[in-house]
């Protein structure tokens, strides 16, 4: 079962060198323990473009689909047998990256 762990921040690319070291070490452990699927940081929401091609003609809109102070700044996709394991990993992730995180199961 896969879980999406989003990292919530109010700035993009704001990790300190210490945080980056902690995140790398945590990622290594996720890989060693078989929980790793993928992880990445995201550029600032101001770099986003929203596309709506439902009308046949693609409509491009500059900016994110939701304007908010806090946003998705990065994510992990982890493999875990159940929510308890996912929550434990996410709690460690929050500690290591020093940010709030949200856990959602994949469908």
């Amino acid at each position, binding site marked *: *079962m896969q879980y999406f762990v989003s990292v919530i921040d109010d700035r993009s690319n704001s990790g300190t060198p210490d945080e980056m070291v902690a995140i790398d070490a945590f990622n290594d452990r996720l890989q060693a323990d078989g929980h790793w699927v993928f992880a990445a940081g995201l550029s600032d929401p101001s770099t986003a473009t929203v596309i709506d091609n439902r009308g046949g003609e693609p409509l491009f809109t500059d900016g994110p689909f939701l304007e908010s102070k806090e946003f998705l700044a990065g994510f992990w996709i982890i493999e875990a*047998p*159940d*929510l*308890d394991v996912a*929550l434990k990993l996410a709690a460690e992730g929050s500690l290591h990256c020093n940010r709030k995180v949200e856990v959602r*199961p994949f469908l």
Partner: protein
Amino acid sequence: MSDVPEAITQVHHEQWARVVAALTRRFGDLDIAEEAAAEAFATAVERWPADGVPPNPGAWLTTTANHKAIDRLRRESKRDDKHKEAQMLSADEPPEPLGVVDDQRLRLIFICCHPALAMETRVALTLRMVGGLTVPEIARAFFVQETAMGQRITRAKAKIKAARIPYRVPSAEDLPARVSGVLAVLFLVFNEGYLTTGSGSDPVRQDLTAEAIRLARLIRALLPQDGEVAGLLALMLLTEARRTARISATGELVSLDEQDRGAWDAALISEGHQLVRERLATGVAPGRYQILAAINAVHTSARDVRDTDWSQIVALYDQLVRIDPSPIVAMNRAIAVAELDGPEVALAAVDRLEGSLAGYHAYHATRADLLRRVGRSEQSRAAYDKAIELTGNTAETAYLARRRDQLG
């Protein structure tokens, strides 16, 4: 056969959680488990009056519910996909024998009290899945619309399934943290029963207090070494013991000092005292529920209110303040201080809490009583009015109004 409905009620009380737990284990789905259990009980209501109550009602219900669940999955798998059928096939294993220590029900409690669910959802789900209360009953108990309560429970079950909240007792390292959440749920259920909120309802909901005690006993049987489990059970028993003396014939709340102590339930008190003594003997530092139980043990040890050992009660509150420095604890400590050092000292302590407790009816009721005792009638009257305005309990309203009207 006239006692069949009574037997069904009793079996429902004793076996509901067991049946739901057995089916949850087998099908891994709370929704299926709950619906099949409900259908099995409906079948019992139909058949038992004619056929008689089976010799092992629990086994009968579990078997019947299993068949209902398999029927449902079969119907769905015809409509739906093949993977449902796989689930159905695995359901044909014989059910696990139900041991004396039935930890399936404990697992059910832990799934319902999972920290990923909101506290109010945990309470509702526990009452439904473990307590067997219907959605309308739960909605009534917490004064929300039936549809809203139904949706809350449905959403919770969907989250449990989609996020794969595991159906198990947490591992030893997680257990202490998770048990405290379960105890908090049971305490909320109990308190809702003991001082029911909302006007126009019974001031006491004995079904809720009884259910909370029953679940606490269950957890106690499975975790006999846990001090806070014992403490909460003792606290509930010592509180429940006073229930009948707490409401007068005219439906008015009777305060502790005015209660007929002969009407207290001696068996519950003795059991509660036994638990408190047992915890004291361990010498382990007590937690919140154990201290509250000890306070109630001191109250219930006095055959007359004048014999109450107030210095011991204040000492216990001092202990409680150290682990829980909340304004409510400070207020309750002040009530005991009033008996030891006089109402002026207590009033000064209570007045300092206004900032945090101004919206709490008990704060105003406490102040009203203290103001009355120091002879400040006008202010006392205003405080009674404020307390009446804020309380939702009919018996408490009657009590406060009478006290207010007695002011000179």
